[in-house]
């Protein structure tokens, strides 16, 4: 009995099928997107918290903000350096979207990369997109 030929062909086909999905991206690492800042954000210079804390913890701030606004009626946030913010995701100046009005290039680009899909925008209004 000599089925070596068939076994090898079978193995090659099997391996091809397994690695097929990875081929198109082979050798091309997707670059980590660099969130773009709007002129408004650049002028402000800093976010609510230092950049590293924002990057890792912005969803916690949003959670704190919505509870405090909706349930306690408190809508002003003062950070460590005394800067005031309007505790709102999507409305008005000094809200998240007030500074990051380029939602598509800022929030979405990073979320797409990280495969996160916040459902907030089912209700909260997206900013009228401005091209940078």
């Amino acid at each position: 009995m000599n089925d070596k030929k068939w076994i090898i062909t079978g193995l090659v086909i099997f391996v091809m099928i397994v690695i097929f999905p990875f081929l198109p991206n082979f050798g091309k690492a997707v670059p980590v997107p660099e969130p773009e800042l709007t002129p408004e954000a650049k002028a402000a210079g800093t976010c609510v918290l230092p950049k590293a804390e924002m990057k890792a913890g912005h969803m916690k701030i949003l959670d704190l903000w919505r509870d405090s606004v909706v349930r306690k009626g408190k809508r002003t946030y003062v950070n460590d350096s005394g800067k005031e913010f309007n505790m709102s995701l999507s409305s008005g100046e000094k809200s998240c979207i007030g500074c990051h009005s380029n939602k598509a290039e800022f929030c979405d680009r990073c979320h797409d990369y990280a495969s996160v899909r916040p459902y907030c925008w089912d209700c909260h209004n997206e900013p009228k997109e401005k091209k940078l």
Partner: protein
Amino acid sequence: MKNSRRNFLKIAGISALGFGVEPVFDAFAVSEGQEEIRRNKNALTGKRWGMVVDTRKIHSSHDLEPMIEACHSIHNVPKIPNENHEIKWIWEEEFEHVFPNKGNEYLDERNKQLPFIVLCNHCENPPCVRVCPTKATFKREDGIVMMDFHRCIGCRFCMAGCPYGSRSFNFRDPRDFLSNDETDPLFPTRMKGVVEKCNFCAERLAVGKMPACVEASHGILAFGDLNDSDSNVRKLLKSNYTIRRKQSLGTGPSVYYIV
């Protein structure tokens, strides 16, 4: 070191001391930064917000439309043609539906044909809050019965609990009925599957403004603190005979009607 009862007690004592001073350290840690969450400086505050509707000033639907329009446009309440899917925060109703237990067989002509304005009563003892399983609807310290849309699971117990029909369920996605330029960007829309109702314009009170319907009412509506005996609403209640909706149920409505 030899373990002895004496040593054990010493260590326990020192540890207890450590726990004792911890709050002091915490206080220092907080006072270092000045992170703070507070009300806006110009926010209107009260102990129990309430409303008085002067129905003597109403002549026809024409007087009520501006209030309904003002409310529904700033809160992105869609106009859905199918009555079963309708969303209402404030609307017009006839006497026998507003005050079903006060309907005499022979009602005076004026009240019989008069359109009344109705909205959430922001009850003192709200049945909707008692039945909500997620505390999505709750009573704030200033008496406003609020919806926290982030917690609403759409079970509709609150709608069954409310004796006034003040709540609407989103059977449809409201955005299908709001064009882009109709949508007020400053207030979130809602989504399919949540219950909504009037919020006494909590978002406007927070920035020092009166509720939108009151501003548009040409004096038909008065809004103020029922807890403050010098407030405009209490003065109106002192000098006029008023009734409330289904008062005998014990919900304690905060909306009064001068008839």
